[in-house]
């Protein structure tokens, strides 16, 4: 289960230390074998076993190219917990050799259990999976850094795009989960921030039942117009369906001829396999060669997390999790992530500050922040919770 034999969590010289011997730096990739999402609505969607991990592995090979020239070698230890594992108990084993750098491919609950484990106090946890606002707000943790954009960053990114388009009257269609409620609240927050209006809102408790059937589309073709017939005019349907229950059924099935944006349709994301600007094309090519599949948002998170560690160790000359943490919070840190600008962490909630892609399934449509949305310090901080709004109080 825990394959950490021989791992030391500090920066160690190789056994046969000669002048040219590479120093070895461990990175732990921690994931849990969660039950899969089940059958997805579209046959085009897949759920590879190595989601996220493949990005971290490709990233490790890339930072080792730099490391080869500098005498540093990074080793990725992959730890897969069984579904339902006691994360806090397992954390003791992971941290037994000492404080570690963890790339966490864990859901929100498990991430908090890991972060709150006493042994993790001096660890550095790079979260590549969650998007939950709560983890960036009241449930933020000093030892956790978030790589992917929060829900609020995503609705802000879409809102700026829609306002730029003058599509500012929104019909909010909200699914049944708690995360849908958070997303819906973010939609309202973004509307208020950027001068759009939620002109209609409706909850929709879609029961997916069997996802595959020979004539299912006929049912959908009657259900979705019913769900979206609201008798008032709007510009776009903003769907809040974080668990992919029904959102993908909406495009072209709405009662009125309106575009669909939100958690499905036109989405806000850190990465899509269709993105090719700012050298992303080279990244897509490298990833495809390595993993024999397309690069997803979580793969990008894994790649970025490992590159952040590489930068802190090789450019920042840090040798411990505590040193890396301080470096990531400093002005000296900056990582490249194919967004045309250096990415940095917000010190108030340790969320990676980043432009966000606006994408439909096959194409990138835009990238937010949109031109014209201004900020006194950093335009990218127009996305998500800015310093004055943060509810995060980090224990130092």
């Amino acid at each position: 289960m825990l394959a950490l034999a021989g791992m030391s969590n500090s920066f160690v010289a190789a056994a046969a230390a000669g002048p040219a011997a590479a120093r070895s730096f461990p990175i732990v990739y921690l994931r849990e074998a969660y039950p899969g999402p089940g059958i997805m609505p579209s046959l085009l969607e897949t759920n590879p076993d190595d989601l996220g991990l493949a990005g971290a592995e490709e990233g490790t090979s890339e930072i080792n190219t730099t490391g080869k020239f500098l005498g540093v070698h990074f080793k990725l230890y992959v730890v897969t917990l069984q579904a339902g594992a006691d994360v806090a108990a397992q954390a003791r084993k992971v941290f037994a050799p000492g404080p570690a750098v963890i790339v966490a491919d864990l859901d929100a609950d498990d991430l908090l259990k890991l972060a709150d484990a006493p042994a993790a106090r001096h660890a550095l946890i790079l979260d590549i999976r969650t998007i939950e606002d709560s983890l960036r707000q009241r449930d933020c943790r000093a030892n956790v850094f978030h790589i992917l954009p929060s829900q609020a960053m995503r609705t802000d990114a879409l809102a700026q795009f829609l306002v730029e388009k003058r599509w500012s009257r929104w019909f909010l269609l909200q699914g049944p989960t708690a995360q849908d409620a958070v997303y819906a609240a973010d939609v309202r927050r973004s509307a208020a921030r950027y001068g759009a209006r939620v002109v209609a809102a409706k909850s929709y408790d879609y029961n997916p039942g069997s996802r595959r059937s020979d004539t299912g589309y006929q049912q959908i073709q009657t259900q979705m117009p019913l769900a979206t017939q609201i008798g008032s005019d709007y510009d776009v349907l903003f769907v809040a369906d974080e668990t992919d229950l029904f959102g993908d059924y909406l495009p072209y099935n709405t009662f009125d001829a309106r575009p669909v944006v939100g958690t499905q349709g036109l989405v806000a994301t850190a990465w899509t396999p269709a993105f090719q600007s700012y050298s992303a094309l080279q990244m897509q090519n490298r990833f495809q060669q390595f993993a024999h599949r397309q690069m997803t948002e979580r793969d990008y998170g894994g790649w970025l997390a490992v590159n952040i560690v590489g930068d802190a160790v090789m450019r920042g000359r840090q040798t411990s999790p505590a040193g890396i943490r301080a470096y990531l919070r400093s002005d000296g840190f900056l990582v490249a992530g194919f967004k045309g600008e250096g990415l940095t962490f917000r010190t108030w909630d340790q969320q990676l500050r980043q432009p966000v892609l606006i994408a439909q399934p096959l194409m990138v449509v835009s990238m937010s922040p949109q031109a014209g949305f201004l900020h006194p310090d950093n335009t990218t901080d127009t996305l998500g919770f800015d310093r004055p709004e943060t509810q995060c109080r980090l224990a130092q």
Partner: protein
Amino acid sequence: MPSRAMTGRSGALLALAVLLCSFAASGRASELFVSNEVDDTVTVLDGDSYKVIATIPTDQRPRGIIETPDHKAVLVCDGDSNNIDVIDTKTLKVIRRIDTGPDPETLATSLSGDELYVSNENNALVTVINYATGKWITQVPVGIEPEGLAVSRDGRTVVVVSEETSMAHFIDTKSWQVVANVLVDTRPRVAVYTPDQRYLWVSSEVGGTVSVIDPRSHQVVHVINFQIPGVDKQYIGPIGIQFTADGRTAFVALGRANRVAVVDPGSYEVEKYILVGQRPWQLTFSADRSRLYVANGLTNDVTIIDVSSEKAVKSVPVGRLPWGIAVVP
């Protein structure tokens, strides 16, 4: 009136034809060759009037573009076609294609022009090619996403910067071994020796800086920062670098900051920012070095800067996503 207008136009056409003929006979004036990354063309501009003389179809995704030392040809890397187009500067036609291996991004020639150095962006290699035969002499493994190349004046060293690895790699041209690797700021794009060869300047697009490297000690001796009032720091992305012949002034294109910085290489102070088109990347001097040409990727034009007054004189439209510029006297 219509007939007068007609006369006027055909007269002008006739004059142009005579002009072109006389250039063809006596050798034309200086010309700019601009690679248009998404058009798969090279736009040829007249070096005096900046009118489009020709639009030359190339292979796919033309980016790095240079003239040969004898000015007989302009060479252009076609990233998606894995070759170099050789454009005859007299006939303005592609007369030859040279196989480069995968994804060539930029290129340089040896001092004599006998050898070509090509950065293979997808393969982390520099390919060395015999220009006459097109045969590969060797391939040198370097960092990930190699891009800008610089050749020392003594011909002994080729420097390549790798974007993803964030290094300048110094390659010895006798042994074809990498002899030094210098870590610079994030995503280096271009390397240029100072005219006195004492320093190598490397621009880092995402890092937002220019690293000044001592090529003997292989140490970074200075880092140049840029600050522009009203422009977010993250939009400052240095790429193209050019020095005046006397080495007293450097010009640095700043990408999304839409400006070219004027830097004093003695003090490393930034003296001025010249507003140009959107997302300027590569820079090239006119043959007499009185003008600086700037390829603006997002506005699809070339800005012409007067070097003595350090002012943008005009911008001229070219193809889509202009990447680089070669100048033939």
